């Protein structure tokens, strides 16, 4: 593989196997993302376990989930679909479609966050607030809020991709960044589905 090295500008690539062929390994960045996803899962596992422990104790009050969350669920599912289409377009080098689809994912992501915010407002106005006794509402704000923060992180990343796509200076036709984006986006989608089911059933 890399045989020469220029100080400070070497290629930092995974090595090759004994016979000179490249090892069929997952790209390091993708791997890093998977570990990061594991880490995020632990965070929400911690919070939802706390929810379960607390919900069995005295003084617990359940809350009804705001209706608007159904719309946000639809939105994020749709955005996942569009993201997947964007990935396919990118791989097929249909850059115009790719741009549109990334823009679509971005807009749907923003919509999701706005809908969540509206849901929180509904809940807040219905009297479920921070002050006072503990209950499902306080957890819902924190857990769904943290989820929205993770979506927002994805939205920012999408914005960067969007700008890059429109500036059109992609000389490197590597699909890795798009794949990373898609993986993360599907993950926050699935995470939301998990949380939704959790809030409905527990």
């Amino acid at each position: 593989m890399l045989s020469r090295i220029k100080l400070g500008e070497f290629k930092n690539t995974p090595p090759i196997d004994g016979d000179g062929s490249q090892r069929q390994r997952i790209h390091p960045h993708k791997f890093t993302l998977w570990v990061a996803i594991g880490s995020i899962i632990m965070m929400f596992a911690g919070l939802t376990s706390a929810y379960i422990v607390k919900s069995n104790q005295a003084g617990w009050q359940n809350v009804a989930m705001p209706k608007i969350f159904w719309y946000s669920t639809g939105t994020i599912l749709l955005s996942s679909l569009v993201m997947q289409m964007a990935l396919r377009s990118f791989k097929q080098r249909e850059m115009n479609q790719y741009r549109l689809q990334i823009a679509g994912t971005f807009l749907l992501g923003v919509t999701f966050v706005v809908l969540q915010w509206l849901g929180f407002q509904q809940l807040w106005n219905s009297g479920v607030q921070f002050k006072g006794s503990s209950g499902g509402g306080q957890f819902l704000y924190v857990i769904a809020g943290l989820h929205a923060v993770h979506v927002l992180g994805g939205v920012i990343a999408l914005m960067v991709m969007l700008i890059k796509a429109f500036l059109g200076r992609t000389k490197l036709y590597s699909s890795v960044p798009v794949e990373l984006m898609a993986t993360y986006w599907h993950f926050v989608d699935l995470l939301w589905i998990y949380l939704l089911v959790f809030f409905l059933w527990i």
Partner: protein
Amino acid sequence: MSNDSNLHGKPEIVTGHEVHHDEHHVHHHKETFITKYVFSQDHKTIGKQFLITGIAWAIIGGLFSVLFRLQLGFPDQTFPILETFFGRYAKGGQIQPEFYYALITMHGTVLVFFVLTAGLSGTFANLLIPLQCGARDMASPFLNMLSYWFFFMASVVMVSSLFVSTGPASGGWTSYPPLSALGDANQGSKIGTDLWLIAMALFVVSSLLGGLNYISTILNMRTKGMSMTRLPLTIWALFFTAILGVLSFPVLLSGFILLLFDRNLGTSFYLSDIFVSQTGQALPNEGGSAILYQHLFWFLGHPEVYIIILPSMGIVSEVLAVNSRKPIFGYMAMVGSLFAITILAFLVWAHHMFVTGLNPFLGSIFVLLTLLIAVPSAIKVFNWLTTLWRGNIRFTPATLFSIGFVSLFISGGLTGVFLGNSTIDIHLHDTKFIVAHFHIVMGVASFFGMFAGVYHWFPKMFGRYLNSTLGFIHFWVTMAGAYLIFWPMHYEGLAGVPRRYLDLSGWHNFNKFGELNKMITVVSIIVFAVQLMFIFNFFYSIFKGRKVRHQNPWGANTLEWTTPIRPGHGNWTGEIPEVHRWAYDYGKDGREFIPQTEPIGKGEGHH
């Protein structure tokens, strides 16, 4: 894969001309001071940044312990000089209660997280993972750089909390609510605790960024021939450390987030039915559970103690094998016990909570799981001792610190077996016995591993040696001092002396420990002074130490010693060497050591 399209052909062959060309090239691409030393993406520089920041924190954290030991050893004496430096915190030359609690809290926080987590893993994971796996750098040098700078920001916030007018957090390094949640209950629980929580959140981010990279690098960036079972044990230990961190720190973060909500927004995650006597007010919070915080905290807290000890275990394994000129005994058993410890570390957290009213049945399960940790721990100790056994031991400072580590780990592990039994723990919980247990098994032991690593790899980091005479003084004083300080605390704890109390004079029973406490304080001061001597040695040797003239000064097998004495960014000037054997062929076939890069000879057996 994207950026290695040039890989499909045969590996390129370097000709002398090309190498020359590149060396020439280097001059044109001179890095600036900023990219080389400040915002560097070179893992070796980042490792040094972690180390030096860790040293700064160790001085601060160590000094704090000397200050509160003054109070514990000489409760009725005054030290006017303290008032000069700390003003109203040491009114009349005596450490005030708020100050005392702030000191023990910051001592614990700083040493556990900023020194023995960031300073230790940060230093050696960064330095050793690419070098010993045979990689140019981490999987993502950029995230790696971010990891350091998040640590730096965490440090800035934590330092700033020392200077706010109500003082820093002072509810103990565990920051249990309700105390830590109520600013009215305690000066330190005002803005100090918010800053503490923010600093810790930044710290968690730093740990996660680092850990992700370490795992990804170890699994994906090893050089040709470097199978997992050929990795030196340092890398295995750092690997499991990173896994522990990546899976447990996020849970701590969620615990902290809930605490921030309770503190600032009036929620009741942890709070219920509270009357604050300082303000004479009953709080509206209802239905919260302070125990919930303890679960979230110790779900990290216990893995955290292994995050602290595992890197030292790895360093010690490597240093002992190199310096007894013998293969490590039971390599696979070492890896297996690291693995077992990692799994068990997630399953024992409630042994910190035996007295919280935990269901006794549940408690007994945690007793069982806790005591199980003794098995892999004992395997490791056995293997270190058998590695030393009949070795041709070279007593370098690194070797001594490694042997010291084993001694401390045995002593402290044995007291762990006491505590793991919930019935005994009911008596010992929150006494000085706990302080003795974890300082010996974790605090000092892990420091010893870190020292061993610094003495051993200093030549690789700076191209010079540390002074050995100072190293020997450093070892013997610290070793004797550690036992003199912490051994007597077992007796105090058995007698019931509580931890975290600033004044025991109310108990006539404990007066008999007066002289003992004086002795402990005096020894602490001496030990602290010797650490300053080490730090002098460290900085002096960076500039004036004896120069390393040999590429492989310790005659070690691992890859870092195949790089130039002062490696540039990218580590190897030519191709990355290929690996043909495990890291522990010492004293084989009549040869003292056989580097990993040497092909297996004809008729040579596998290890």
